[in-house]
Every structure is written in structure tokens, then in C-alpha cells.
């Protein structure tokens, strides 16, 4: 029964992320969200699956494509939507936009838009945990592009030699903007870049929440028991354009088959079918879940719209810490 409950909660979290992202996409043309958005649609299972084994004191770091991670870890929705609107109640008070989401109360330390830039920060938090003898773990989400950055390699090596409690989560959506992995790497097995540093790893279908969860359970347990890093490769698929609200397969940069399979492997459709077949949920219950989330989303957008812009003079504040 409890496991059914967990499955429903995780499913709700995935649908919630999807609906929030779709709402952003739908309202983007209103020109009120005037910052780049990198939507997580299609990659919800990776975020929710990993997060289900973290507690509040565990810290996460994310990238330009941070919405799913932020929401799955419990980031404040109003603060996120306000931030994307450039409003004063945004998590950064309008200074960061969509690519800089954080929420200290939820353990989301930072999201950074330069590819790979965030990876060593997560290692730094893990270093703090080790030095302070805390039992938490630090998790960094990044894409298949970031693993090509030198700083990933510096970070993986350092985490291993210092036995740091950090989980590297590489979401492989096959593309760095429009450039496919096959033009950038000898093969699509990225775990070799963990193995070569002696870091234990698992590669799994990142669109299947069940599989992501079982890999994440092993990963987090390994980190806590063995006091050393772990690496997950979660293969997934970006539904929409790299940056922006639209679908972009009219540009022809992805193969027909790849697109077809990608959309069939929609993490939410897979899980929805499974839960219905198992009798855990039915269409009415799902509709009810969706409606409740939609109400929450509308409230968040109303909040953001009514929220004030930061005063112009406030732009001068906080250059240096006191």
C-alpha cells in the first residue's frame, strides 16, 4: 500500500512538472517571461526518480535546464514563476531568471547556465560534508554536453581521491543544443568517463521512473555506505527546442526514428499506462490530480503577475557581502 502511495506521489510530481512547463510554454508568447527558458519536458523521470531518495539536508545543484530539479526537490513554485517574470518575490529577486533557480530551504543551492560550471560546486559541498563529518550527500545534475568539459574530469577525479559523498547525475538527452552526441563522443556510453576515475556507476533508461528509482536507491546507498562518489547515466529525450517554448523538429536535426521513439518513451505516458494497468490509478483520478495541479499553477502565475518588479534602485544592493 505504501509503495502504491509512493508511486502515486512520484507520478503526481512528474505530472506537476510537465504541467508547469507546459503552462510556461503556453504563456511564453505573452512576453511577460522575458528570459531564456530551457524546459524540462521529457526529462521529468530523472529529476523525480533521483530526488525520491534525498532528504531536505541533502543538497542539489543544477544547470540551465533546472526547472524539473528545482520542483522535484521541493523548490517554491511561486518563487520560481516570479523569478521567470523578473519580479521581486522571485528566488533571486529577479536577478537570475530561469537559469539561476535556487531554494536554500529545499536544499537547492544553485543552478548555473555555463555548461559544466556547477559540477565542482557540488563537489565542494560534498567536501564540506566530509570535513564537518555530516552524513548528507551532494547531487549535481548535468547533461551529456557537460561531461565533455574539463571541469567534469577535474571534479570526478577529486571526488574519488578524497572519497566525497557526491552523486553525479548525467542526463543524456543526446543533444548539446543541436549537435548530436554521435558527433561529439566515440559512443553513447558515458559511464566510461566515470569508470576511468574508479567511480561506481549505473546506466539506465532515464524515461522510466521505476528504473531511475532503483538505480538512485543503489547510488545513494553506495555513497552513504562507502563514503565515495557515484555516477548515474540516465538516457532521456528532450521533447522541445533547446531553449524556448516550441517544438522544433521541423528543423530536421533529429532523425525521424529517433523522434518517434523519443516521444513514445515519454516518462509520463509510460508511468500513466503502468499505473492504470496495475489498477493503482484510473483516468478520473488522474484528471482530478491534473485539475488540482492546474489550479496551483494558475495561482502561481496570478501571484507572479501581481508581484511587484524590484525597484530600480535596488539593483545597486548586494554587490559585496557585509
Amino acid at each position, binding site marked *: 500500500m505504501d509503495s502504491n502511495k509512493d508511486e502515486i506521489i512520484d507520478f503526481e510530481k512528474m505530472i506537476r512538472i510537465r504541467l508547469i512547463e507546459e503552462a510556461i510554454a503556453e504563456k511564453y508568447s505573452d512576453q511577460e517571461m522575458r528570459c531564456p527558458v530551457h524546459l524540462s519536458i521529457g526529462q521529468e523521470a530523472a529529476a523525480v526518480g533521483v530526488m525520491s531518495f534525498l532528504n531536505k539536508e541533502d543538497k542539489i545543484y543544477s544547470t540551465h535546464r533546472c526547472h524539473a530539479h528545482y520542483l522535484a526537490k521541493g523548490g517554491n513554485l511561486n518563487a520560481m514563476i516570479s523569478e521567470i517574470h523578473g519580479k521581486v518575490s522571485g528566488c533571486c529577486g529577479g536577478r537570475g531568471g530561469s537559469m539561476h533557480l535556487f531554494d536554500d530551504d529545499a536544499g537547492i*543551492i544553485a543552478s548555473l547556465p555555463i555548461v559544466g560550471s556547477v559540477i565542482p560546486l557540488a563537489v565542494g559541498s560534498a567536501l564540506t560534508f566530509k570535513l564537518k563529518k555530516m552524513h548528507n550527500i551532494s547531487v549535481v545534475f548535468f547533461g551529456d554536453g557537460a561531461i565533455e568539459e574539463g*571541469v567534469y574530469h577535474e571534479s570526478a577525479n577529486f571526488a574519488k581521491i578524497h572519497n566525497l559523498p557526491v552523486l553525479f547525475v548525467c542526463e543524456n538527452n543526446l543533444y548539446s543544443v543541436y549537435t548530436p552526441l554521435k558527433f561529439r563522443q566515440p559512443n553513447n556510453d558515458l559511464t566510461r568517463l566515470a569508470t576511468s576515475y574508479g567511480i561506481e556507476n549505473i546506466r539506465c533508461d532515464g524515461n522510466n521512473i521505476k528504473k531511475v528509482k532503483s538505480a538512485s536507491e543503489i547510488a545513494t546507498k553506495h555513497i552513504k555506505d562507502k563514503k565515495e562518489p557515484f555516477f548515474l547515466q540516465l538516457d532521456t529525450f528532450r521533447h522541445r527546442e533547446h531553449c524556448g517554448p516550441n517544438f522544433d523538429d521541423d528543423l530536421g536535426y533529429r532523425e525521424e526514428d529517433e523522434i518517434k521513439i523519443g516521444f513514445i518513451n515519454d516518462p509520463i505516458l509510460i508511468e500513466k499506462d503502468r499505473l492504470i494497468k496495475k489498477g493503482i490509478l484510473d483516468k478520473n483520478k488522474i484528471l482530478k490530480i491534473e485539475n488540482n495541479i492546474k489550479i496551483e499553477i494558475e495561482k502561481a502565475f496570478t501571484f507572479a503577475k501581481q508581484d511587484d518588479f524590484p525597484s530600480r534602485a535596488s539593483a545597486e544592493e548586494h554587490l559585496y557581502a557585509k
Partner: protein
Amino acid sequence: MQNDRKITMSQAIGEATLEAMKKDDTIFVIGEGVTDPKKIFGTTSELVEKFGIDRVIESPIAENGLMGFCIGSALSGMRPLLIHQRVEFALLSMEQIINNAAKMHYISNGKHNVPVVVRLIVGRGWGQGPAHSQSLEPLFAYIPGLRVAMPAFASDAKGMMLTALSENIPTIFIEHRWCHYVTGKVDSDTSNVLLDGPSVVRSGSDITIVATSYMLYEAILASDIAKEFNIFIEIVDLRIIKPLKLEKIVESVSKTKRLICVDTGFKEYGLGAEISASIFEALFKDLLKPVKRIGLPDRPTPSSRFLAADYYPTAENILNEIGKLMDFNSHKVEQMIEMLKIKKPDINADVPNPLFKGPF
């Protein structure tokens, strides 16, 4: 008795680190060579023995990663001191320094602090050449949110390091290798000094010289000679390159109405350009002469001491500019330079003092 204690600037920096680590167990030291036999020119001596390898962390060669590890650990409550043996090593850390260390406090609307201190050493001399001797403080000073400190004197260096390690501002702490050797009085109970901007180290009424780091010593030498010719130089130690506090410089130049800027970096687009532009803006009508700038020429640093001889400005260059600002005739300038040569016989441009035997 204690007040007469003289130690070198490198000893002073080491002492500050040790004292700060004793007081605050969130401080750790990290870098390439921090535990090796040479101990970063002696500045990390005794640290690993006293605090162990968890707080004095030897590292792989990974400058960008190191900077990121420090930022991440600072965000979660630690106070890292990262050391690079050369300024140029930090060029590999620039993405982290510029995008993350400098901006985190601002972007988070004041919620996040990055109390990281990064020590960089300018390695002038002994043929170290183009990529081991640069004084690149303007690169860091260009970035909003960073603090850039450049101590010249042992006592100040100790106080500055203590303060930098106790505050929440990401600080680039640039030490000239030749200042490391210079001794000065340092009270054993030296405490924090404010990192609040320039300080006047010599009072004078005729010319203001704003100098940084090692060039303070050349400026002091030049001012001693000038004094013999009845020219009284006011010397301002810039100390804190960023944030740039101009008040004391404006105050000084308002009095002297003449300014020479002397620093250890390249002249073009350098500190002198920034300071002289600001002084022209503030005091255009009061100036008796155009502002003079002294810095390195616009070419990479050569290794050979014969090529380096004309590369580094000295007190002689400063005396030449003093002569121009005071309308001295060439004879009088020559007299000043003669006196300089008697006071400080020629030494090679590639060693800090005649006793120096290399290699770095």
C-alpha cells in the same frame, strides 16, 4: 621588544594563515603544493603538521575545479584559502572566478556568500618569462563583485590576510614574489586591518605617487632622492585594487596637483589608466601637469635578463617623470639619477637583491 620584531612578508602571510586557522576551524587551505617540501615559498610551513591533511589539502592539477570546489564548500559554510603559486595558474580558474565567485552574492539577492580567498603570486625575475611573471590584477579588478588586494608590506599583508579570511567577500590576494623577501616590523599580535582602500605611506606636497605592490619600494627610493632636491613626494599605497576607493587619492592630488601612477602590470589598459582617468574627471582644473603613468611595455615578458633589463621600470623611470612634472632641466635629472646609482648600485633586473641565487 615585541614591537621591533622584523619578519618577511612571506612569513607574515604564513603567520596570518596559521593564526586564522587556529581561531576558525571552517578555514582550510587547498592548492597545488601546499604540503610539499617547499610549502609555497614557506608560506604554508607548519600548516599540514598542525592541522592535518583534511584542512591543508594537497590537490591534483585542476585549477578550474579547485576554484569550483572552494566556491561550493564556501556556499555550505566553509572558508577556503586557495593558493596558486603563479598568477597565471588562475587563468584556468577564470570561469569559476568570474561567473560564480564574483556573482553569487549579487545574483542570489544577498542570500549566498562566497568567503573564498585566492592567493596568487607574481613571479618576477630569474628568467621566468612570459607565462610565469605576469601581474594581471586588472583582469580581476574588471569584474564586479570581486575584491582584489595587493599588499606591499609585511605588517599590512598579515592584517589584510586575517581580515580577508574573516569576511564574506571573495578576495583575490596578489603577492609580488619580490615583496615576499622584504622584512618589516610586524607585531606578533597584529590583528585585522580594514580592507577599505589606499593608505598614505609618505607625506609630501609636490607630487602624489600612487603605487602598488613591489613598485612601492621603487617609489620610496625615488622619493628619497627627490627629497634631496627639495621635492616632496606623497606616496599612496593603493592596497585594495578593487573596489577602487578614490577619496584618499583625490585628497592627495588636490594638495599636490601632480600625479604619477606606478604599478607592476602592463601600462596599456592598466591600473594607471583607470586611476588617471578618474583623477582627470575629478580634478581636471586643479592639475598642474598631465598625469603620468609608469608600467610594463606592451609586449610579453622576456626570459633573458638582458631583454628584461629595459622591461621593468625602476626608480630611475620614476625620477625621470618627477623631473618632467617639476620642469627640471636635463642636468638636474641626471644628478638625481647619479645619486640613485650611488644609493643603489646597479643590480640585475632579474633578482630582487644581490643575495638572490635562484631558481625562483
